[in-house]
C-alpha cells in the first residue's frame, strides 16, 4: 500500500491526483464495520483515517475528551465521535458544508505537535519518522483542536499524521483545491436568480454608472485581457482619458464611485517605474488631469503606500493579535488576562484599523465636503486601495449598507477589482511569505467597527460579517480563490471537463444557501435596521424636536489646530492652474492625524443623524473595539450565559416575527388593507426558545460538554494545583 505521507515527501511537485488511487478508496471501505463514515460532500474523497483518536475538549483542567475517528479528506479534516451527539439536531445555525468537528483544509493555520510535553510547530520539512503524541490544529477561523494520537496503532498514527500534515501544510497547486472537485456537481440552488450584482458584464457597470450618475467611460477593450492581465474584464475610466494603449497595465485611473455632486473616487496603481523620469512625471500628469477633468478640474491624490502600513505590517500585526485568541487550554487564557488591554494594544491591530478608517474619513471629507475628485494610488492598486475605496463608499452611500449592496461592493471592488485573494490568503500554503496579508479581513474589521457604532444603518448583522470572514477559507466558492479576473477565467477554462461545452462553474460565496438554510440566513439580517420608508410621512405625523440644532456654530472648545500638511497644494504652475491639490506626504504626529478630521467629524456629528446619509465612524481611543463575536466565540470562558448583544438581537428578531405574524393575520382577514403595511420585506424569524442563549449564541456549539470555570484567575490556578492532590487522595482512599 502506498503510504501517503512518504509519498508526499518524495514528490517535489505535489499533485492531487497521485494520492488517491482507487485501491485506497476501497481500503477505506474495508475498515471495520463499526466505524462510521462522514457524510461526504459530492466530489469529496477520504484520504486516510485513524481510530481511536481522543479529541480533547478545550478546557484543559482535566484531560477530558471524546473518542472517535479522525478522517482526512480532500476537503477537510474531520473528527467523527464514537458517541452519539445530540446537538446536531438542536443547532439552529448549522453550516451545511462543514460541521463543528470539521476543519476545511484551507482553514488550517498552523499545526503543532506535542513531542514529550514540548510543543513544536510542524512545518512541511519536519522529521518524518517521529510522531507526536498529540497534535494541535489552529484554524484560521480561530478554532483550536487538540487530538491525542497515543491510543491508535502506530501505523495508523503515522498515516493520519503525515496525511494531515501533508494536505494542510504542503504547498500545492491550485487545481488540487476542493472547489474543482465539488464544482462538477451543480446544486439546484445555483440556478436561482442572483440578486448580487457580479460586475461581470458591461451591463452591470453601466447600470452602476447610471445609479451614481457618473459620467465616465466603460472600457470593453480588455474583454479578452488584451490590454492587461492584471486589469478587470470591464472597467470604467475618466472620460477625458483617451489613449488607452499607452498605459501598460499600470497607472490607469479606475473609477470607483461618483458622488451626487459629480465628483468621483478613483483608484490607480503606480505608473511603471522603469520609464524615464520625465515619462513618469508626464504619465502622472496625464493621469491627474484626466481625473481632474471629471468634475470642476479639482483633484486630490493620496498615496496609500506611504501613509498606511504596508501589507507586511498588517500581516505581522494580525499574527500577533490573533495569538491572544488562539487558546490551547483555558489556563493560558486565564494567565493572559492580567495584561489584556496592553497586549491587545501592543499588537497594533486596532491601530491599523483606526488608521484605515481615518484615511477613509479623509477621503470622504474631500468628496463630501470639498466636492473634489479623489484619486487613491498604491503600488499595485488592489490592496489598500480596495480597503479605502470600499470603506469610503460604505460611509457615503447607504446602498452599500444593505446586504445586497455590500455584496455588490465586495464584488465590484475586490473580486472584479482584482484583489489577489489567492496570494493574500495563502490558500496554497506557499512558503513565500512576502505576499500574505489579511487585507480583506482588515476591511471586514473596519466595516465591523462601523456596524458596531451605527448598527441601525446597516441591513446586515455582525454575524454576517463573521460568517463572511469564515467563508474566505472554505474551498468551495470561486469568489476568493483567484488572483484576478484573468486568473479566474483561465483556470476555469483549463479545469473544465472536456465533455461539457461551457466552462466550469463554482458557486459564489453569495449563494448562502450552499452553506446555510433559510432559517439560519435570518441571522444575517439586522433586526434593528431602519429601512427607508417612503410613504411613511403621510401616515405618521413626524415628531419635531423641540429645539433646532444649530449647524453653523463650531465648538471652539474642541477646536483643534488647523489642518496642516495633509492635502498640500502643489507649487507647480500647471497644476496650480488646474487647481490641483496633491497630497504629498504623511506629516505630523499621531495626534494631528486625528485632529485633522476631527473638525469634519464634529460638524457631521452636529447634524441630525441620518442613517441613510453620510455615516462616519468615531475613532477615539475608547471607540475602536475588538470584534468580540469573531475573536472570542470559541472561548467558553468568556461566554456570558443569558447575555450579550446576540441575545438582544434574537429577542428583537422574535419580536419582529411576531409583528409579521400579526400582520399576516390581518392581511388574511382584510385583504384590502394589506398593501399598506407591506414595506418590510417578509422574512421568517423563528427559532426555538431564545431563553438560554449565551453571548456567543450562533457559534458556541460545545455548551453541553464545556466545563465552564467561573471562578476567576487566582483561585483557578491554585485549584488546578490542588486538583491533582485531591484526586490522588480519592484514589488512595
Amino acid at each position, binding site marked *: 500500500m502506498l503510504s501517503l505521507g512518504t509519498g508526499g515527501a518524495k514528490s517535489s511537485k505535489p499533485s492531487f491526483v497521485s494520492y488517491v488511487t482507487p485501491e485506497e478508496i476501497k481500503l477505506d471501505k474495508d475498515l471495520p464495520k463499526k466505524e462510521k463514515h462522514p457524510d461526504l460532500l459530492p466530489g469529496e474523497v477520504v484520504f486516510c483515517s485513524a481510530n481511536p483518536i481522543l479529541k480533547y475538549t478545550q478546557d484543559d*483542567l482535566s484531560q477530558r475528551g471524546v473518542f472517535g475517528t479522525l478522517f482526512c479528506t480532500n476537503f477537510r479534516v474531520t473528527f467523527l465521535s464514537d458517541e452519539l451527539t445530540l446537538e446536531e439536531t438542536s443547532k439552529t445555525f448549522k453550516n451545511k458544508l462543514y460541521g463543528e468537528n470539521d476543519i476545511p483544509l484551507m482553514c488550517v493555520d498552523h499545526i503543532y505537535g506535542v513531542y514529550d510535553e514540548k510543543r513544536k510547530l510542524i512545518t512541511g520539512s519536519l522529521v518524518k519518522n517521529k510522531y507526536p503524541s498529540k497534535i494541535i490544529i489552529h484554524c484560521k477561523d480561530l478554532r483550536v483542536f487538540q487530538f491525542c494520537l497515543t491510543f491508535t496503532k502506530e501505523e495508523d498514527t503515522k498515516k493520519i499524521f503525515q496525511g494531515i500534515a501533508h494536505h494542510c501544510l504542503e504547498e500545492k497547486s491550485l487545481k488540487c483545491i476542493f472547489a474543482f472537485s465539488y464544482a462538477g456537481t451543480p446544486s439546484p440552488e445555483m440556478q436561482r436568480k442572483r440578486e448580487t450584482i457580479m460586475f461581470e458584464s458591461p451591463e452591470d457597470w453601466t447600470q452602476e454608472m447610471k445609479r451614481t450618475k457618473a459620467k465616465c467611460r466603460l472600457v470593453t477593450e480588455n474583454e479578452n485581457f488584451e490590454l492587461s492581465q492584471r486589469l478587470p474584464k470591464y472597467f470604467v475610466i475618466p472620460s477625458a482619458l483617451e489613449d488607452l494603449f499607452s498605459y501598460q497595465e499600470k497607472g490607469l485611473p479606475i473609477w470607483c464611485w461618483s458622488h451626487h455632486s459629480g465628483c468621483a473616487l478613483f483608484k490607480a496603481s503606480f505608473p511603471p517605474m522603469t520609464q524615464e523620469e520625465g515619462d513618469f512625471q508626464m504619465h502622472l500628469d496625464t493621469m491627474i488631469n484626466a481625473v481632474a477633468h471629471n468634475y470642476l478640474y479639482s483633484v486630490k491624490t493620496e498615496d496609500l503606500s506611504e501613509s498606511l502600513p504596508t501589507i507586511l505590517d498588517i500581516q505581522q500585526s494580525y499574527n500577533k493579535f490573533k495569538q491572544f485568541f488562539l487558546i490551547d487550554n483555558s489556563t493560558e*487564557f*486565564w494567565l493572559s*488576562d492580567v*495584561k*489584556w488591554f496592553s497586549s*491587545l*494594544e501592543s499588537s*497594533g491591530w486596532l491601530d491599523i484599523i*483606526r488608521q484605515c478608517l481615518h484615511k477613509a474619513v479623509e477621503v470622504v471629507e474631500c468628496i463630501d465636503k470639498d466636492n473634489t475628485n479623489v484619486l487613491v494610488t498604491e503600488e499595485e492598486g488592489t490592496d489598500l486601495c480596495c480597503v479605502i475605496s470600499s470603506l469610503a463608499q460604505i460611509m457615503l452611500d447607504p446602498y452599500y449598507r444593505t446586504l445586497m449592496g455590500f455584496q455588490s461592493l465586495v464584488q465590484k471592488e475586490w473580486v472584479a477589482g482584482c484583489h489577489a485573494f489567492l496570494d493574500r490568503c495563502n490558500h496554497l500554503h506557499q512558503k513565500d511569505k512576502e505576499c500574505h496579508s489579511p487585507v480583506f479581513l482588515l476591511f471586514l474589521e473596519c466595516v465591523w467597527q462601523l456596524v458596531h*457604532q451605527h448598527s*441601525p444603518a446597516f441591513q446586515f448583522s455582525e454575524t454576517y460579517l463573521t460568517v463572511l470572514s469564515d467563508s474566505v477559507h472554505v474551498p468551495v466558492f470561486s469568489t476568493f480563490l483567484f488572483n484576478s479576473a484573468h486568473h479566474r477565467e483561465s483556470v476555469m477554462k483549463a479545469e473544465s471537463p472536456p465533455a461539457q461545452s461551457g466552462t466550469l462553474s463554482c458557486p459564489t460565496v453569495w449563494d448562502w444557501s450552499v452553506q446555510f438554510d433559510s432559517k439560519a440566513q435570518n441571522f444575517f439580517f439586522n433586526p*434593528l435596521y431602519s429601512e427607508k420608508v417612503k410613504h411613511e410621512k403621510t401616515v405618521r405625523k*413626524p*415628531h*419635531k*424636536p423641540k*429645539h433646532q*440644532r*444649530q449647524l453653523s*456654530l463650531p*465648538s*471652539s*472648545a474642541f477646536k483643534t489646530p488647523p489642518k496642516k500638511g495633509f492635502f498640500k497644494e502643489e507649487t507647480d504652475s500647471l497644476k496650480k492652474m488646474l487647481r490641483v491639490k496633491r497630497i504629498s506626504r504623511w506629516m505630523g504626529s499621531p495626534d494631528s492625524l*486625528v485632529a485633522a478630521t476631527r473638525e469634519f467629524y464634529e460638524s457631521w*456629528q452636529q447634524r*441630525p*443623524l441620518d442613517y441613510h446619509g453620510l455615516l462616519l465612524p*468615531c475613532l477615539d*481611543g*475608547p*471607540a475602536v473595539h475588538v470584534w468580540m463575536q469573531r475573536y472570542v466565540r470559541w472561548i467558553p*470562558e*468568556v461566554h456570558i*450565559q*443569558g*447575555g450579550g448583544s446576540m*441575545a*438582544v438581537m434574537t*429577542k428583537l428578531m422574535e*419580536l419582529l416575527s*411576531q*409583528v409579521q405574524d*400579526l400582520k399576516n*393575520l390581518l392581511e388574511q*382577514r*382584510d385583504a384590502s388593507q394589506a398593501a399598506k*403595511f407591506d414595506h418590510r420585506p417578509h422574512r421568517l424569524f423563528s427559532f426555538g426558545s431564545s431563553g*438560554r442563549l449565551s453571548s456567543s449564541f450562533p457559534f458556541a456549539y460545545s455548551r*453541553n460538554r464545556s466545563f*465552564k470555570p*467561573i*471562578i*476567576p484567575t*487566582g*483561585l483557578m490556578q*491554585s*485549584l488546578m494545583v490542588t486538583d491533582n492532590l*485531591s484526586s490522588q*487522595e480519592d484514589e488512595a482512599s
Partner: protein
Amino acid sequence: MLTGSKTTFKVRQLVPDMKERMMSHSSLHARGRDVLGLCCLPGECVLQRAVLVRKKLSAKEGGGWLSGTLFCTHFRVAFVPQDSQKPDDNADPVLLGDHDVALASIDKVVAVGPSRTKLVTPTCSLKFTPEELVLYCRDMRVLCFLFDRLTPDTQAVEITYTIAKTYQPLKPGTIISFQNAALGSIEMKQFLSNRRRDPTMNWFESSLSWEQELERAGATGWRVSSVNDRFEMSTSLPRFNVVPQRVLDTELKKTFSHFNEGRIPRWCWRHPRGSDLLRMASFQNNIYHEKDDIRNLESVLFGGQQLCVIVDLGEEMPSPADIQLAHTRLRTLCLGDISSSVSVPDDKWLSTLESTRWLDYTRCCLRKAAEVACLLRGGHMTVVLQEPEDRDMNCVVCSLVQVMCDPHCRTVAGFQSLVQKEWITAGHKFLSRINCHRESDKEEAPVFLLFLYCVWQLWAQYPARFQLTEDYLLALHDSVHLPLFSSLLANSQRERCRRSQHLPQSYTPVNGLRELPMGGPEEPVDPPFPPVWDWALQYSSQRRVRFTQAVSQPACPPPVLNGNLNTNLDRGWHNDGLPGSVFLLSRSTFSHPSNLLPWRSGNSGSYWKSHRRAPSSESVSGLERLIRACSLSEPSENSTALHDPHEPLLPLLLGPCVRIWRSCYLRGVLHAQAFSHPVSSCTQHPLEQLSWEVQQLREKLAQASNRRPENQTKRQEPRQLESNLNQNANNGTFLFSYSSRTSQQQASPSRGASHSSVPPRAQRTASDLPRPAQRNNSKHTFLFGHQQEPQSGQPHIPSPSAKLPKRPGNTH
C-alpha cells in the same frame, strides 16, 4: 425684558458676603419664578445670568445644541432652554433640573477664548471675553456652554466670574452655605419635614427593621441586640446589631473590647442554604483572654454553625489610597481636560486605561465576592469577613456577595436597603471618603464608587437579572458628589443621629430616635438633610421611570421561611453548641494558621484543653472542592439552574469581559459616544418604528374585532415599551422575562399598572382566530413573549402617575 434683572444685578455686587445676602433675600422669592423661566427653589436667588447661551448636549441627551438662558444661583448653575415648558408652580421642588449642575459638584471652570483657554479661579482675572464655558464636574460630567455673538460681553464675563467665585472648590466650610442655599429656607425646611420616607425599603434604623431582615432571610438562632443603643460600646457601629441568640447582652458587652473600634462580628445575611455571612474588624491582640471571654467570642463568631471561615480582606484588597490614586488616574484619562495639554493618544488609550488599575481593583473585589458567594453556597458555616477597620472593603465585599446571591438586592428597594444596611448604618466613613468638605485629602477614597462600578459590571453582564437599571446606578453615582444628603454626610450612624436631633419629630417616623437623649450642642446652621433615597428631590418623574426595568422584573423568590434549602440534612448538627474548626481564606487558598484566633494561639493555652478537635487538612481540600464545585457547575446542563434565583450570579472577570462604564466615565468626552446617536427628526429609530407598527397593528386588530377598547390605555402602552426598548438598545442590553410573576409590591404605581396590562400569551395560529373575548388579550402578546399568569383579578387602570416623556428617544 430685563425687568427682573434689577435685583439680580444688585445682588451680584454682594457676592463676597453671600451669607448675609441670603438671609435678606430668602423670604422675598418664595417659590419665585424668574422672568426668564428659572423656577427657583424657595430662598434661592439668581446671582448672574446670561442670555442667548447654547448648551452642548451630550449624545445621550440628543446631541447638538440647545439655546436658552444660563443662570448662576448660589446653589447651582442652571440652564433653561428657550422653549421649555412652564413648570407647574404647584409641583414639588426639584433641586436640579435636567440641565442643571450643582455648584458643589463642579470641579473646574474653564473659559475658552478665541485663541486660548484658561482655568478660571476665584482670584484670577480674565483678559478675554470667553466664547465658551466648560464646567468639569466631580462626577465626570462635562458641561459646555457657548456664548452667542448676541450675548452681551459683560454677561459672558460676569457669569464666568460668578461661577468661578461661587463654587469655591477647595475652601473648607463653604459647604454649609451651599447647603443652606439649597435646603436652608423656611419653605424648604417645611417641605422636607413633610416628606415621607420610602416605606418599601428597609432603613435599618430600628430593631424592628433588623427583625424584618432576619425574617426575610429566614435566619434562626440570631437576635437583635440593642446593647449599643447609645453608641456606648462602639461609636461607629449601628445602634442595633444582630448576634447569636444564646449570647446574652451582658456577655456580649465583654466582647467589644477584643475588636478594633469595638466592631464585633455581626450577622449580615443568611444564604438560603443556611450559611451565615458576618463581618468584623480585626482582633485586638494585646488583650488577655479570660476563659469566659473565649466562650463568648467563639459563640459570636460561630453563630449556630460548626464551621467558620474567616475571609481576610486586609491584605490582597486595594487600600483606600490605591483606590483614590486609581480613580484620579481614571478621571484624567476619561475627562479629556482641555485646560491641561495632557492627552492620551488613541493608540495608547487601552494600555493607559489598564495602568490606572481601576479595572484591576474592580476585578479584585468581584473575585473576592464570587469566592465568598461560592463558599456560602456550601451551607452550614459562618463566613466572617475581616478587615482591620471593617469600614471599607468589608462594605464592598459584603454587599457584593448579597447582590450576587440575593435577587431581592437587585431591585431598587432591595438595593437601597442593602446600601443602608452595609454602608450607611454600618459606618462607612462617607464624610471622609467622599471628602465633600475638603477637609482631609488623605482620607479621601471613592470606595463607594468602586462598589457602584462593581455592581455595574454585574449588571452589564446579567441585565436581565436586575430590576434596577444603569440609569439608577448613574443617579446614585452622581448623588455621591452632592453634599446634601444625610446618608452620605456622616462617618457613622452616631453622627447622623446627633445631627438629626433638632429636626421636627415628623421627619423620623420610625421609632427610636426620640428615645435618645439630646447630646452635644446643636449647630443651628445645618439645614435638615434629606436621605439620598428621596429621588423625587433630585430627579423628575420622567427620569425616575428609567430607574427600574419596566419590560420585566426579575422574579423575586418567595422568602425562604426556614432559611435552609436543604434542611433535612444534619438538623441536629447545628445545635451541637461546640464550636468547631476555623479556616482562613486568604489569597484564594484555605489554611488554618494557629494564630488565626488570638485566644487559640499557643500562649493562651486555655483553648486546647477544652477543644480536642484540630482542623485537618482534609477539610481544607473539602472546602476548596466546595468552591470549585460551584465554579464548574454547568448551567446549560440543567437549564433551570441558570435561573434558579438562589444560584449566585458569578461575574466573568477575564480581560475581554470587564468593560468600562461608558455612560458614566466617558460621558464627558463629548465625541466618544458615536454609537448612541440621537434620533433625528427625519429618521425614526427602528425601535420607535417597531413600536409604532405595533400600535398600528393594535388599532387594526381592534377595528377588525369590531370592538373599541379604551383608546387612552392603548396609546400609553407602546410609549412605555418604546422608551424601555430604546433605552435598553442604547445600552446594548435587553431584558428577558422568564418570570411568571412580577412582584407588584415593589413596583411603583406606574409599574404596577403597566405590568398588570400584560396578558398571557395567546395562541397565534392562523387557523385559530381568537374569539372576541380572547382578542383583547392577544393584542398584547407580541410585546413580551414570555409566559405570564393571567392577572385578571386586577383591574386595568391607567395610573395618573404613568406620565411618559414626550419623546423618550430624544432624551437618551
